[in-house]
């Protein structure tokens, strides 16, 4: 009797211990790549030497958009004898996508503006993807409506409800309206600008931009200063412009070059008064384009292979790579390397580069936190309905993009991709902050932001997966973009050709592609296969 009583009370005491730790969230999830441990081992320790070095004409290091585009160009130029090495398990870099039973979804880059007729490379890619219906009377490509972002495109959360568009018209004073129009008059001025050679001030990719002094001067100061000098002090205009900077550059008005601030708006216009180019989007984001490019590479693409050294030797270069899955090193002896990775990795891998090119330290990369939330149903809406891009005004985040929007699904389960740039002034500090966060603290940050917009959302979330991007995008800080030493970072170095969007100082699909094509065309020329440029 006594023993039973003891057992009963013991189990009663144990009960709260067993059941008391209620999970903080009614859903699960995980932290996904990039593989930070591998990256850090690369910087800290050594790796074993490979058994031998396989001869090969060209090796592409990095399977992001720049590397894949370089491979695409090599194939197109008749050079089929190359390999592409990617450290991550999936190619695409920040255009990577994921997929679950509800929908494919992006892990970062999720749209592409419709190219103008001068952007030959993007048009060629879209044609290959079967996305160009034809050309209009002006020679502009015509895209099918289902590939363009479906209306409603954007909405903004402010004053406790959603509003159509990202610029908040409700409650705007006449001065706000005046400044808004005055700002776009400035944009129109720059959209109309042509230099002595007929080049526009702003165009995509930036290689097509004018280098006239009057344009370059814009890069001297910050966008904040440029706005101050012109009396643009409307809080809602400045919020809108800072949103644009956080969205495209991961930086604030005062840490963004005025050139970059105007580029965001003017480069997507054909001329004054015209609308911005419409956007192409897919459920999986730019992963759709990655899918085409990896198809071009086929079996020449190797994921999970981290390059550990690039050494010049007589008549070429020796490249070693670590195959983490098999626990062995591989080696190639190549004539040319296309290095399609970021400069902070290049500095570690390429001897002498750091000393020869100190300008590479000018590059600052903003860290980002991206979360994909799988929802078993959508929350009830009572103001402006769910759009493709859903942005809260009073938040450090950029809100969320709805993956199922482009698959026309308006009911039931969906996936939301939530974005937050760490836009503080010092990237290194921001990066340590981000990388110190575990899944729990990431989920807490995401949900605190979303619950303000959608009370009760927790019960609709099935899982929440998080990507911590340590080096998500280059920041176009004032003075960087037209710094001669910075621009020289794109020049070849001892048989190594560089391709990466950060060499433009702007993180865009088109910039990455352009550098990939340039590097590939340099290599084709060096191998004696020059041809008509695709750029």
């Amino acid at each position, binding site marked *: 009797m006594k023993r039973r009583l003891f057992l009963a009370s013991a189990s009663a005491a144990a009960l709260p211990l067993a059941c008391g730790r209620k999970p903080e969230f009614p859903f699960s999830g995980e932290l996904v790549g990039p593989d930070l441990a591998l990256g850090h081992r690369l910087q800290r320790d050594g790796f074993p030497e490979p058994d031998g070095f396989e001869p090969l004409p060209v090796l592409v290091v990095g399977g992001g958009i720049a590397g894949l585009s370089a491979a695409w160009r090599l194939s197109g130029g008749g050079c089929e004898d190359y390999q592409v090495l990617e450290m991550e398990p999936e190619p695409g870099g920040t255009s990577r996508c994921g997929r679950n039973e509800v929908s494919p979804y992006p892990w970062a880059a999720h749209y592409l503006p419709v190219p103008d007729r001068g952007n030959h490379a993007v048009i060629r890619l879209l044609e290959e993807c079967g996305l160009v219906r034809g050309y209009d009377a002006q020679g502009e490509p015509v895209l099918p409506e*289902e590939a363009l972002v479906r*209306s409603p495109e954007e909405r903004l959360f402010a004053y406790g409800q959603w509003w159509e568009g990202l610029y908040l018209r409700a409650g705007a004073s006449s001065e706000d309206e005046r400044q808004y129009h005055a700002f776009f008059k400035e944009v129109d001025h720059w959209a109309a600008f042509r230099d002595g050679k007929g080049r526009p001030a702003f165009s995509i990719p930036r290689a097509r931009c004018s280098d006239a002094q009057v344009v370059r001067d814009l890069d001297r100061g910050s966008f904040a200063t440029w706005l101050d000098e012109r009396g643009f002090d409307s809080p809602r205009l400045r919020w809108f412009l800072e949103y644009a900077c956080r969205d495209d550059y991961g930086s604030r008005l005062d840490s963004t070059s005025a050139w970059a601030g105007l580029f965001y708006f003017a480069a997507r216009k054909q001329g004054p008064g015209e609308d911005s180019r419409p956007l192409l989007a897919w459920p999986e984001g730019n992963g759709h384009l990655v899918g085409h490019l990896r198809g071009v590479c086929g079996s020449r693409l190797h994921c999970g292979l981290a390059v550990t050294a690039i050494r010049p030797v007589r008549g070429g270069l020796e490249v070693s790579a670590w195959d983490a899955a098999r626990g062995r090193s591989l080696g190639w002896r190549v004539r040319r390397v296309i290095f399609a990775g970021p400069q902070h990795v290049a500095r570690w891998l390429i001897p002498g580069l750091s000393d020869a090119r100190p300008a590479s330290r000018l590059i600052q990369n903003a860290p980002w936190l991206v979360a994909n939330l799988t929802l078993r149903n959508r929350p009830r809406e009572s103001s402006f*309905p769910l759009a493709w891009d859903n942005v809260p005004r009073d938040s450090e985040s950029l809100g969320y993009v709805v993956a199922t929007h482009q698959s026309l699904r308006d*009911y039931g389960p969906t996936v939301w991709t939530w974005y937050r740039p760490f836009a503080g002034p010092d990237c290194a500090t921001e990066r340590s902050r981000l990388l110190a966060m575990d899944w729990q603290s990431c989920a807490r940050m995401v949900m605190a932001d979303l619950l303000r917009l959608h009370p009760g959302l927790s019960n609709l979330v099935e899982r929440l997966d998080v990507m911590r991007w340590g080096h998500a995008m280059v920041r176009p800080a004032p003075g960087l973009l037209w710094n001669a030493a910075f621009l020289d970072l794109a020049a070849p170095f001892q048989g190594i050709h560089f391709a990466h969007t950060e060499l433009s100082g702007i993180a865009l699909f088109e910039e990455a592609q352009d550098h990939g094509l340039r590097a590939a065309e340099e290599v084709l020329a060096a191998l004696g296969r020059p041809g008509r440029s695709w750029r």
Partner: protein
Amino acid sequence: MIVSDTRGLPQPTLRAPLLFISVLLIASCGLIYELVAGTLSSYLLGDSVTQFSTVIGVYLSAMGLGSWLSRFLQRGLAQRFVDLELAVALVGGFSAPILFQAFAHTHAFRVVLYGEVMAIGTLVGLEIPILMRILKDQVHFKDLIAGVLTLDYIGALAASLLFPLLFMPKLGLVRTSLLFGLLNATVGLWSSYLLQSQLGPTRMLRLRCLAVMAILALGVGLAGKFTLAVEEEIFADEIVYARDSAYQRIVLTRGRGSFQLFLNGNLQFSSADEYRYHEALVHPAFAVNPEARRILVCGGGDGLAVREVLKHPAVREVVLVDLDPAMTDLARKQPMMRALNGGALDDPRVKVINADAMIWLQEAKGEPFDLALVDFPDPNTYALGKLYTTRFYRLLQQRLTREAVISVQSTSPLMARQSYWCIAATMEASGLRVRPYHLAVPSFGVWGFALASRRDFLPPGTVLPGLRYLSDEATAAMFAFPKDMDRVPAEANRLDNQVLVHLYAREWRKWS
């Protein structure tokens, strides 16, 4: 345990049995107000479980508050009781009209709702303790508590049964709440006689009672004309069926010799004149392609278009794609619906698919259709607007034979002229030849459709004989457009612009 003894009690000077009847009445009034608030908030806010739970919770706790407050009332209980009845009569009686107004004209509906529920609950909570204290010297405690509680519960039962069966369907929420307010005021007046011995001069008190009763009676009389458009339009008729499906709110009402279907508050048909609409949707297309064998119906989950389709002997197979299984189930199982559509959805030739028609068209494979009927609700949301885009009509054409004919419901060319022509322009932009037509459907107004095919075609000449509205002459007349609805220029509606949703909202705003 308190033990009471009859000895020592004064002779009853009050008419206790009659006061017990007051308990019965005030108990039913109290429950009616609670049901009114719960029903009204469920209708207006949806999610009836939450609404009823929160209303009942707040109400019961407020009753507790009222009971507790009753201890602070010391003297003149009889007078307090009559005043209390008048207060309940006013606050409870006007609760439904006030809540409708709050919903229509303020953003603080929930504040008003719970404020009302709190106030009524508190007042109702005061009633029984005060009445028991009035009666405590007249009746044994055990008899008192047994009598009061028995009648309290019986009154609640009566109210809970009569509310859904009699008051809601016959009177509606507003009249019900006003009528029970009147009942509370009557109890007040009556109590002024029953409790006369405990009251001082009663003239003023009775005048107050009569004044309150007059106000409430006036309310009942004006309820019809009172600006209660919300309730009058949607709920004045008897509600036969109401349900929030995963996609929409479905309401069936019966009244004036017919019944009506509402989706999200928008009238879909009235059984009085739906034959005009559905004959016009279906038969002109068959007149162009009388040998059509495989028919696709997009939307039309009520089964009424299918009923018309099945009148054509050549039809071998009908595929109906409707988003909402709740709608197609209702069409199959609800007796009035089934009687109206003749069980069309259970015909062996008919296959019902519950899917978003656009996504279904994108993914569907199989034999092409000879004829398609497109019967979606008007484009008042983006989710509906996408079903009126060039992309939708292109996807539809991919599922049709070369000779196929399409008929599309396309809103009113009179009330929403540009929207109507925008749909026609969109169909043309997708590569269709379009012949627009219209007719009068009294419960909707002038209604428009568009007949289309990938090939050029002549307007329909001979329609199926034996229809109620359409004859060959009536069919020919539908294709002529009077000047006030004639073609106006309109941009094509595309997925990436959804111009129609904006246009439609702007045009219909004029009429609401």
